[in-house]
């Protein structure tokens, strides 16, 4: 499974929605349940899935899914 598939599964698990399909431009405005509280769940789930921990500076300006993918790629590199 590639990174995007794994990330899609994380989103589907966190937001309890199997219809979620990610694209780079997607933001919290595109998923109704993606608020500041569930964002914490999302980050925690990503950390568990990919086996690393985010640094505060890495997550404070996450503008969309594309930015999230780039951070994960850099952490896994």
């Amino acid at each position: 499974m590639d990174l995007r598939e794994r990330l899609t599964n994380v989103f589907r698990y966190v937001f309890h929605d199997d219809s979620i399909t990610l694209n780079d431009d997607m933001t919290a405005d595109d998923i109704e349940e993606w608020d500041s509280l569930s964002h914490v769940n999302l980050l925690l789930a990503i950390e568990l899935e990919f086996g690393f921990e985010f640094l505060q500076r890495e997550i404070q300006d996450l503008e969309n899914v594309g930015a999230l993918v780039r951070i994960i790629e850099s952490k896994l590199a």
Partner: protein
Amino acid sequence: MLTKNFAYACLTEKCELGLGAQVALHWINNDLTAVDYTYQDFEDSSNQLANVLAGFDIQAGEVVSIFLPRSEQLISAFFAIQKLQAMSCILFSTLGEEAMLDRLENSGARVVITKKSLLRKVLAIKDALPQLKAILVIDLDAHQGGQVYSLPQLLSEAGTGFDYQHYVDPETPAFLQYTSGSTGKPKGALHVHGGLAEMQQTIGEIMIIEPGDLYWCTADPAWITGLVYGIILPFSLSIRQLQFSGGYNAEKWMQILDDQGVNTWYTAPTALRMLMQEGEFTFSKHAFAALKHIYSVGEPLNPEIFHWGKKTFQKEIYDTWFQTETGCIMIANKPGLVVKPGSMGKPRAGIEIRICDDEVKPVPVGKQGYLTLRAGWGSMFRTYFQKDKEYQDKFRQGFYFTGDLAKQDEDGYVWYISRSDDVINTAGHLVGPFEVESALLEIEEVSDVAVIGVPDELLHQKIIAFLVLRPGETWEKALELKCRIHVSNKVSSFAMPSDFVITDKIPKNQSGKILRRVLKAQYDGTDAGDLSTME
């Protein structure tokens, strides 16, 4: 004597008076683009929707639920429902499936109006709601079958005229707003069209909004504040207002406040506390020249926020107090009344409060007691829908017990102490421990649970869950995530515990009641007091 239907007072009468073309709402999208909606726009769109609902044979007194984020469609839907003399029931779009089910089951909702991104939650519980006739989806292109209809398609076939009774019996049910109790499931406080006059009195008496002033209420309409002070009052009193479709965002909020020239701003202490954490630059680049008055509601306003607000905006923040059950502001600070920071202010004219003991006897000045209100004010809730016994239990000797503990000082100012029950007020949301506990008990690794609220600097109270795990289970990050996600999806994101404490046993009395004070003491590291009743 008859009273104006909310829809007549807010829309139709405006159009009859020649104000149809006047802007009723300046809507600001999340990207800060804006759209203006006139009274006539809402009159027409609510007429169309009323025709659609009538097509589903919605009768007076039946419930139509609106499960949408704040939007112009939500407002149109509210008025359409009023025109049918049906009852609206607006639900937070963040509610999870079980929380939805509790509310839709209790209300017996016949129709749910929602959007595609929320449809999944409604479909998940639809089969448990035999009374539900239709699900109308505002952004679906075509009917889906299985009771799921495209609202645009239905609207395209509906007329913009709709005859309805402009004047109704004052006791005609108008809306249900759900609130949580310390035990059992959420309760729907029923409000009537006759409450309008009392609600309107609070503008002018508490909220000073001069003709032409721009007003902004930040509350979601699923809150009583958002419905009464964000829709009913600005519309019925022709107050120029804006609404922002996005949630809390410090930069955008300050930009809106300043650029739009907001004169009167009604917001919540949690939002103000979040703003307090922002850097100076967030505020220093704005002049807030138009801002005249700031009001807050939802949780007690700490003196620190009051002083910060005065420094940042050069304005006092007037804390106001009311509940879903009271329908409008009952106790408040206001311009012209010296503010005692941290106080709720004074009761409104005509509102009699009593700080009393269990026997409804007044306690001495300065002493803590139950905050009660003499029953009978116009905007008072009329019952808890389908739970009249619980409604009756809220009254003793003609006084409504609010569930808050307070004291009153020698000058008549009221000071909030805490809740007298186990309800948790987190960021202005009242959360019943029972709802969260029920969700957590569904997790297979959990064998027992108890939930408490503890003080929090940002949220007023945060939710703490004590868990007993089944033998062989261990607490790890993945299980914590599972618990958080489950509560979020079943109840709501705002009901998620901030902290989990793993324990061997939940303290209970001999009849099985959770001793929450023992857990609070355990969490705080303080003395739990008398433990003689513990099992």
